[in-house]
């Protein structure tokens, strides 16, 4: 019976396709296979990268940098003068973060980082950029209306505080040092690192507090 056959074929087709990766996944597999075959990438390097950035490398690295800057004035100065060299002291400067500038929040200044072109981000110390950082809504508005964007994150900046917006590029990326919360003089560097949020190092969070 043609009807039955057509239905059966459709079911088999559906069953087969349920195991088929998405169009994008197939294209990536194709690209990786071709690059590996040509000796242009090592599959182990790709797997190690994916594992590291999916599970291991995240904003805790940046938080450690900030906590050390809060605790060690000499390190803080080195960080402001030459961030790559200072971060290299901690042993995890990725090549992608080789051109990094550190900017510091004060009572009078709030810093906000964006990449208006694409999504340049110091990922070797902050991990993969959050979805909102890559969204057109953020990239388009952070420069034009930084206070409005900050308000969306629940961050109200007083009128007498200057908001500086830093537009990242492939050659220069930014890390914000948020202000150290009051009442944390007794805390260790490791405890301080626990107070630092990912967003505070991008500038979409300002007031950190003791937990």
């Amino acid at each position, binding site marked *: 019976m043609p009807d039955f056959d057509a239905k059966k074929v459709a079911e088999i087709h559906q069953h087969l396709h349920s195991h088929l*990766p998405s169009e994008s996944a197939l294209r*990536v597999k194709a*690209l990786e*296979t071709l690059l590996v075959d*040509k000796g*242009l990438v090592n599959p182990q390097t790709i797997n190690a990268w*994916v594992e590291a950035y999916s599970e291991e490398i995240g904003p805790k690295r940046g938080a450690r940098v900030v906590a050390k800057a809060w605790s060690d004035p000499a390190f803080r100065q080195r960080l402001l003068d030459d961030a790559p060299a200072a971060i290299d002291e901690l042993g995890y400067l990725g090549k992608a973060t080789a051109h990094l500038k550190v900017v510091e929040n004060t009572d009078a200044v709030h810093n906000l980082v964006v990449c208006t072109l694409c999504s340049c981000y110091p990922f070797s110390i902050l991990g993969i950029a959050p*979805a*909102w950082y890559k969204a057109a809504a953020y990239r388009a508005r952070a420069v034009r209306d930084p206070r409005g964007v900050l308000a969306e*994150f629940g961050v109200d900046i007083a009128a007498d505080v200057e908001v500086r917006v830093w537009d990242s590029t492939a050659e220069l990326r930014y890390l914000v040092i948020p202000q150290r919360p009051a009442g944390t003089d007794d805390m260790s560097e490791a405890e301080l690192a626990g107070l630092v949020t990912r967003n505070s190092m991008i500038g979409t969070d300002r007031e950190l507090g003791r937990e």
Partner: protein
Amino acid sequence: MSATDDRALKPLVAVDGQPAFDEAWQAQVLALADTLVQSGMFSAAAWSDALGAALKQAADDAADDNQETYYRCALSALESLVAQNSEIDRRAMTGKREAWEQAYLSTPHGQPVELASD
């Protein structure tokens, strides 16, 4: 301000709190791009320009402003840069993609999917 109003003002916060990648292929795209920048096939600036152009095109086409669109743009940018900077051309990419699809369709479920050698 009511809780509803508060949520309405925070669309950017609503898309935060997600895992680094929604799907494995997204991670693989960035891994390949970063690895090829490190190996010198193309520069970080060329990657940024290509990705920026793809994102602008997506915005001009009114594509959804989400991670899926972002990573599809990243994949397109990567394919363009590889085509421009290596011997791997579009035809090879399409051919290998078809080969992978056939391999998936012809491999019984539960067995490892492998590509037949050329």
